[in-house]
């Protein structure tokens, strides 16, 4: 058996060959018993190899490593360092943070409303207070005068007198009618 054929048989046995090669070798193995035996031997080894279980790492190793690293973990790794690592060690994330930061600043300038800042002295505030009081006093005077005018002049002369007059007139009229009835 030549080397090239053996290589092909191995590839077929280990499942690395193309479909065409698989068919060729299968057909050849039907005719040639040596090929068939070789193929089966390699297949068996392949199957046995695939069934091999991985050696489990002993827990003692992990425990030793954990003990060795426990002090280092406490010392060197805090939440802040984790955040720092996430943000600044990854170019994409740090880029995204930069964009968000710039957008925040720009939007602050765009949507900022002008603030009216008032700076008054104590004296000015007292004067303003006094002026308000005076204006209220003036308004109060005007309202009092208006009240007096309405009560004494408007209601007494312009409303009450005409009403009284009209009542007298009505009364006189009614008296005159009574006289006429009596005469009749």
């Amino acid at each position: 058996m030549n080397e090239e054929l053996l290589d092909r048989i191995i590839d077929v046995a280990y499942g690395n060959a193309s479909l065409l090669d698989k068919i060729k070798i299968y057909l050849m193995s039907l005719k040639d018993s040596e090929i068939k035996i070789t193929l089966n031997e390699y297949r068996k080894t392949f199957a046995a190899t695939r069934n091999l279980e991985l050696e489990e790492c002993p827990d003692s190793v992990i425990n030793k490593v954990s003990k060795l690293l426990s002090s280092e973990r406490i010392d060197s790794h805090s939440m802040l360092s984790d955040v720092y690592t996430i943000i600044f060690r990854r170019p994409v994330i740090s880029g995204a943070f930069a964009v968000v930061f710039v957008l925040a600043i720009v939007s602050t300038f765009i949507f900022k409303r002008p603030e009216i800042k008032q700076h008054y002295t104590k004296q000015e505030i007292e004067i303003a207070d006094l002026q308000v009081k005076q204006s209220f006093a003036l308004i109060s005077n005007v309202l009092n005068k208006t009240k007096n005018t309405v009560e004494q002049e408007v209601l007494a002369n312009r409303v009450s007198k005409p009403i009284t007059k009209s009542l007298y007139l009505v009364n006189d009229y009614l008296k005159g009618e009574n006289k006429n009835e009596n005469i009749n």
Partner: protein
Amino acid sequence: MLTDTKYNFLVQQYKSRIYNYSVYLLKNKMDAEDVTQEVLIRIWKNLESFNILSAKTWIMKTTHNLCLDYLRKRKVEFSKNPYSIEDVSEFIENKNEDNPAFKVENEMRDKKIKMKIQELPENLKSVFVLYELHGMKYKEISKSLDIPINSVKVYLLRARKQLQEELSKLKLQEVA
């Protein structure tokens, strides 16, 4: 907190692969434990330097290099094999209580295959273990071992052939 999570994830994911690979390369469980420990510490120290997606090749590369260092520095005791006769007989004693004989036979066959894989030359063994046992791809193996992809393919083929030859020899010895 996040680094802890990342580290714990990597440890859970790769601890057995690291140990398994080291056992095959060093042929000694004690040394394999030392290498595993060292690799796990290096993972912690270099946690920020590699991406979690490329962790597999980084970890296997580190494991491979450390194993080579161990092989260079120490005179590895080849006579004492992790799958020696004592281990197998111990295994039989334990398993006979619960399991049928054929299962034990299969386990013994597996031990023999493991032993023969360990006897392969270092370069063939590395590629074979990573490809056949760890299910890594040619590209990943190429990166982990720092060798061209074509070399990976050639080594794999040679390893398969050599393993088969060794198993056939073993079979003949058993029959004789």
